[in-house]
């Protein structure tokens, strides 16, 4: 298993229980959706799986690493090496060109500027933005911005890609194209993909969909992955 969560809880002050004993297992190369209504705890779960937030209880293991035990100092490094993120919108740093946005993880990985340029350019070509590399986010359409965000999420070859409503701000046609692209790229690279959404269109693209309600997993189809 690439990703394992066991009995994950998240308590907020005033006794709000955002997650209440969530357990799930995602195999290598799976394309998994997490669906549920607003407030069901799906975004909180994604943040914990993405090591952006810490659970109040339970364990999370990514690629064999028990992340809940890592200190704050190591979490950024783990995100840098193992994870890629695509958020809903306003994903890109507005003052950086598409190319510079995609190069960001490589900059933090201390990759040489020349090598970073080559990798970022290849990642942008893979999402069909090779002729928009020097554009600022404000000069790109919503779909193009999300494609650049996908290129950035994949440029460091992460084992796990996490997305939070990646099609939320897009029209249906653009959303469909973007999903097809995502699906193709992660399966080509054997990467695992977990997406939080309430868009049924996204749900239909997934290998399986985990449904959440009131901080618990309501329905969890069996993993079809072998490992």
């Amino acid at each position, binding site marked *: 298993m690439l990703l394992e969560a066991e009995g994950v809880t998240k308590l907020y002050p005033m006794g709000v229980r955002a997650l209440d004993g969530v357990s799930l297992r995602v195999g290598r190369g799976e394309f998994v959706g997490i669906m549920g209504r607003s407030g069901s705890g799906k975004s909180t779960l994604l943040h914990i799986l993405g090591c952006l937030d810490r659970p109040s209880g339970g364990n999370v293991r990514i690629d064999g690493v028990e992340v809940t035990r890592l200190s704050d100092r190591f979490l950024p490094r783990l995100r840098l090496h193992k994870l890629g*993120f695509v958020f809903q919108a306003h994903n890109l740093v507005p*003052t950086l060109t598409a190319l*510079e946005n995609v190069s*960001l*993880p490589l900059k*933090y990985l201390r990759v040489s500027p020349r090598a970073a340029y080559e990798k970022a350019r290849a990642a942008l070509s893979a999402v069909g933005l090779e002729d928009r590399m020097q554009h600022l986010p404000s000069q790109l359409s919503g779909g193009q911005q999300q494609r650049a965000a996908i290129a950035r999420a994949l440029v460091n070859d992460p084992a796990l890609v996490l997305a939070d409503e990646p099609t939320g701000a897009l029209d249906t046609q653009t959303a469909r194209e973007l999903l097809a692209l995502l699906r193709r790229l992660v399966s080509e690279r054997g990467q695992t993909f977990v997406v939080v959404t309430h868009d049924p269109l996204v749900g239909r693209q997934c290998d399986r969909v985990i449904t959440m309600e009131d901080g618990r997993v309501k329905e969890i189809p069996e993993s079809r992955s072998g490992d």
Partner: protein
Amino acid sequence: MEILRNLYRRRLRTGLTVLGIAVGILAFTVMGGMAEKINMIIRGGEAYFSHRIAVRSNGGALRLNLLTPEDIAALRQVPGVQEVETHIMLPLDESAGFELAPRFLVGIDLPNFLRAQTWSGPEASLHVARGAWWKPGEHQVAVLGSAVARKMKLGVGDLLTTHGTRFKVVGVLEETLSVPDGWVMVDQEDARGLMVDSSDLLKSLNLASFVTNAYALVDPSQGDKITDIMASDLRRGFLLFSPQQLAKAAGQATTLLNTAILGSGVIAVIVGALSVINTMFIAVGERTREIGIKKAIGATRSDIIREFLAESTVIGFLGGFLGVGLGALVIAGINWYTRDQGTPVFILTPRLAIWGMSFAAVLGAVAGVLPALRAAKLDPVAALREL
């Protein structure tokens, strides 16, 4: 590049902040330029007086501050005195009001003056830039300090009228940026004549020879000792200033000046730093989401701190650059105006320019620390919720 683009995106705010620092650094540069000039005068004075015990007469009951040939001969007898240089000093223009750099008519005995030059340090020597010293026996001739020549628009061959007498300019001294720039050097007998002509008392006394100032040239390390010997052995009525006393007085003046520069620097720090802190805090607030994205991607706290510090340092440096530039313009402007009056009042030295710019950059960096720390501490999840 990212830094410059971030700053350009908020160009009005950045511009105002940069301007705030620039104004502080401008004050620092102009004040510093004045201090540098005065420091230079003091240093010139120190070099001049490091080999000299200055001797004047307290004038006694008649208040005639004159030294007689017997006095000079007595000074020469003091062990350790290599030479005694004599001057007759008069204000160049008796009707002049306050002058930033006062100008004097200095009567010298040329052979005596040139001998004395060989005993004083090279940095205290005066050199003729144009023309030459007068020949022995020549009268009504003058060698001008550079500031006098400039202010009065006189060159070699021109005539200078002072105290109702005309002098032919035979030479102009090299600029020293120190006191001798304001001197008009003439033959001692001519100066004595001017002094006697202007005073019925002196006329009636019918003195054969006198001077107003004497300088006993000594080895710098012996200055205090020889001054003590003079004080105990010579007749009463001399005012003696040892090189060490003068150096101490100069040191105090320099300290006072440097404190003044530091003071204006501190104002620059307070004003500039506050505006940088304010700007950077606003920037952190505006870019919360951007910081969240960077942290989600894997930027560490130190990555974020470095980015914000670099930005505030650049703001500081731009402010410093602009401030020193404006300061140079102001100094050039004032000097252009006062050059016409004789002497530059401000000097923008390379060290002052470098100090101003590095000071501003360090200031920017320090002012960026708190906002950078706040940015680094942002919780990525909370930051990502910002739109």
